[in-house]
Every structure is written in C-alpha cells, then in structure tokens.
C-alpha cells in the first residue's frame, strides 16, 4: 500500500522541507514505522512514551480523525491521504 502524508509547515524541516511524503503501510502504525525508517526525526514527533499518539498531534486518514476510528490501527488504503496537524491550543 502506498499513501501520502501531508505535513504541516512546522514538521516539514524533518522531511527535507517536503510538503508531502510517500509512505507504505496498511495501518497508521505501519505507515509511521515506514516514516521512522526514512525520516527518524519526523517519527520522533509522532511518538509518545506510552506508544500512542502525542497529545498535541492530530492525525487524519482521508480527513477522518483517527482518534474516532481505530487510532494507530486505523486502516490506510492505497492512495490514502494522511494529514498530520498540530493541535492548536492555548490559554
């Protein structure tokens, strides 16, 4: 399976300045494993100590928030678009 990850500006420096990257995997977890092989610095931004998603990162598969799907086990189809957005928060 080949999918595309859309990166926010804040993370593009970890992927050579690219706005999008091509990745392989049939679930979000597998895709992130693929990211770790090619872009280890980027993968660090997508990991948390408990093995889940960092609180301040939101991940969408074809514009659906994976927290409302199966989390990191969410299926990724061929030509799926995965969008990573920073949580926008403050006080």
């Amino acid at each position, binding site marked *: 399976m080949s999918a595309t990850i859309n990166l926010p500006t*804040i993370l593009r420096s970890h992927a050579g300045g690219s706005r999008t990257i091509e990745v392989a995997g049939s679930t979000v977890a597998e895709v992130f494993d693929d990211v770790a092989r090619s872009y280890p610095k980027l993968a660090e931004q997508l990991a948390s100590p408990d093995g889940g998603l960092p609180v301040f990162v*939101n991940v*969408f598969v074809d514009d659906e*928030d994976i927290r409302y799907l199966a989390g990191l086990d969410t299926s990724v189809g061929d030509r799926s678009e995965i969008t990573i957005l920073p949580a*926008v*928060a403050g*006080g």
Partner: protein
Amino acid sequence: MTAIHPQILEAMLVHADNCHPEESCGLLASDPAGAVRMAYPLTNTLRSSTNYTIEPREHVKALRHAERLGWEITGVFHSHPHTQAYPSPTDVQLAPDPEWLYVVVGLENRSHPVVRGFRIAGGRIEEETLTFERNQT
C-alpha cells in the same frame, strides 16, 4: 505589519462575544501574496474561560476550504474573556508554528475589546502591528 480587513476583524469580535465567558478560537488563512483572507470561527473543545483547543475535525475542514481557494492557514485567533490581549504563558508554551500570526482578543472591558497580533517563536513574543483597513481586494 499585517492588514486585517474590517469584516475579518468583525468575525473575530463577534465570535469572541458569542463565546463569552468562554474563550473563543479560530484560524486565519492568507492568500499567496500574504494577505489575510479569512477568519474561521471554530469550536473550543475545552469550553473553558482560561484555555482553548481548536476542534481538530473543524481544523481540517478549514484547511481544506483554504486549500481549495489557494490559501494557507497562517494564524490563529482566540479571546481572553477576562484578561488583556497579550499571549499567556500557555499560549507561548503551546504555540504550534513560529511563522503563524497569533491574534488575541482581550475582553477585560467587554464593551471595548482590544485586538492585538503577535509572532511567537522559540518562547519569545514579538508584537505584530495590525491595521484594520478596507483597501484589500
């Protein structure tokens, strides 16, 4: 200096007033020339008077709308219902993008809101002068 069209200013002020006493929040989009073209009033999932988090699914919808028009998300606005229009320590800590414009609507005096813009990078706050003029296309 960043020009904000009065209608965009009005959208931010109305959202701040409608959400009061909770914090309002939303995103700003700009065209390729850098002109701010849209304020997206969005939901504060925390429903709090002291904190906000933009509803992520609304965030992605705003992003798609902006992309369809050839724009980019270039900033965020939120209100301080009871304090001044200046970034809080939490705003600085959680600022997601050093290139974004951070607009704060201060409602210390609700009938006389204060709107100020900032850049937040590396923990440092720099004020960005905002002008509210109609001379944009």
